[in-house]
């Protein structure tokens, strides 16, 4: 075989493998959409789930997922932002910073089930908070923090040093420079990072099974008092999310229409995550254009 023939064959092989990857994705999306969509209806989205009979919906699970997402971001964003600012603006180039970075890397490499079990041990068992949205949100924060820190730090780093110098040379404090100049300039990147992490949080289940729990008690959507037991806003109630629901109906095997419920729920899950992904890109581009005056 001449080198040219080998070259042609190798290229063909690469193209073939790539084609298979694309086909896998198409198959996955196709399967989710075609087997899931017929089950997604207004009724499916707005009625409570049922464990032992067919025809249950996902209303509470969908709400729980969104509520949990909001709470998680409320806790993890400020922490991640502060830490990212530390790493990109204050940390010196020394062993201490190295140790901190290692710790964050370790956190990011922990399997989510281990993070979830830690949340279970600490909040559900030791602090007697029980299975609750709050425990779940804290566990998801652990899971989300390292990624968020990394993406925010990346966005801050991408702002040129000349911007920092410009601020400091005007007699501004470092903090003012960071808040008023660096953060706004890094905003498109930061937002994109948050939304992408939101997609991950939304689909996460392993960290939640033993923290937010696997049950969805009847919720009262008219009760706006978060301290009431049945209020939909109560952060201390157990809350099964959409992703956990898919896992549960498939493993418990008591729901007669488990397959169609999970197909529908998967479709909803994927659509929400797709919206997050495209939204992240659109918002990032939009803000970037706005800031640079369309140039």
């Amino acid at each position: 075989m001449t080198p040219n023939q080998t070259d042609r064959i190798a290229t063909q092989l690469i193209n073939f493998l790539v084609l298979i990857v694309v086909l896998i994705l198409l198959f996955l999306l196709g399967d989710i959409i075609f087997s899931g969509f017929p089950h997604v209806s207004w009724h499916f989205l707005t009625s409570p789930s049922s464990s032992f009979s067919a025809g249950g919906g996902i209303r509470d699970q969908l709400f729980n997922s969104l509520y949990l997402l909001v709470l998680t971001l409320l806790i993890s964003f400020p922490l991640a932002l502060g830490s990212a600012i530390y790493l990109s603006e204050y940390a010196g180039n020394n062993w201490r910073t190295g140790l901190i970075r290692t710790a964050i890397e370790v956190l990011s490499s922990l399997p989510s089930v281990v993070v979830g079990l830690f949340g279970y041990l600490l909040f559900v068992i030791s602090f007697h908070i029980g299975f609750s949205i709050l425990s779940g949100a804290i566990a998801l924060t652990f899971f989300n923090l390292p990624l968020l820190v990394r993406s925010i730090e990346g966005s801050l780093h991408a702002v040129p040093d000349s911007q920092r110098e410009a601020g400091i040379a005007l007699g501004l404090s470092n903090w003012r420079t960071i808040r008023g100049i660096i953060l706004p300039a890094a905003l498109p990147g930061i937002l994109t990072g948050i939304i992408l992490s939101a997609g991950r949080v939304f689909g996460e289940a392993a960290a939640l099974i033993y923290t937010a729990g696997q049950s969805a008690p009847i919720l009262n959507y008219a009760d706006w008092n978060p301290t009431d037991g049945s209020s939909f806003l109560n952060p201390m109630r157990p809350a099964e999310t959409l992703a956990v629901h898919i896992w549960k109906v498939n493993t418990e095997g008591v729901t007669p229409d488990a397959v169609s419920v999970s197909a529908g729920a998967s479709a909803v899950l994927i659509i929400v995550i797709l919206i997050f992904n495209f939204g992240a890109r659109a918002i990032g581009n939009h803000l970037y254009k706005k800031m640079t005056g369309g140039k």
Partner: protein
Amino acid sequence: MDEIQKKLNAPSKASREDVIGRIISYTCIAVIIALVVSILYFITSRGIATFTTNHVSLWQFLTGKQWNPGTLSANGQPQVGALPMIVTSFSVTILAALVATPFAIAVALFMTDIAPKTGAKFLQPVIELLVGIPSVVYGFIGLTVVVPFIRHLFGGTGSGILAGTIVLFVMVLPTISSLAVDALRAVPTYFRSASLALGATRFQTIYKVLLRAAMPRLLTAVIFGMARAFGEALAVQMVIGNAVLMPHNLVTPTSTLTSQLTTNIGNTIMGTLPNNALWSLALILLLMSLVFNLLIRYIGKRGEIKS
């Protein structure tokens, strides 16, 4: 002293702002550090209880094949042999990485050297979408498509290492691919032009120059994928069968560390041996993730491209 001199010598609003900024950001980082330390501490202290409180020997735990922590064996020892789960976890991880790596490198080469434009336009979103699909959805599709397919081909239940490998292969594919792209992009362009200018074909350049220069980073990409596969819980749990048996082939039900944990931790009572034994499994997971981490660092340090 005139007014300017006074100003030069006194703290101002800006000095106070900086103190506040430092306090805020130092506090945030301290919270994260405290968190990591307490995760390591709590899981470790729980995980070693099997050996310190229940006096199970570490050797027996790592090599025993019987997992039945609630009952005693004939010789009066508790049956906590984790070997089946350790073997299964490693099997699915290594098999998934073996299958995924050629695909991932093909994808990466396509995006960096074969057709960068098409790659950026079509393949990048494909990879991003694959990353975005939640693991329970992978598990669900595994359960409704892969398991029945294997059952049809080989008989039995269809659950097992093969099903787990297929599901994990798709899950780690995007992780390895995107890191492989970074690895190939990090090879300076003049490596390519130098090789091509010497009359090498594109494949010779890829094989002899690119892949070799990028090898350490490609390896870390694969290890990243393996770390993800090793720690994946729900998707695997849904297709592996969850029977704690030594795997004898690829298509009989078995159990990984993660699947055993998720299935049983809620069914055991805190402080008892069956519960402690599960925390020991969690400790293995934790230690393995540290090992993966160290490997990545070690290879990363040795393989930096100097240019």
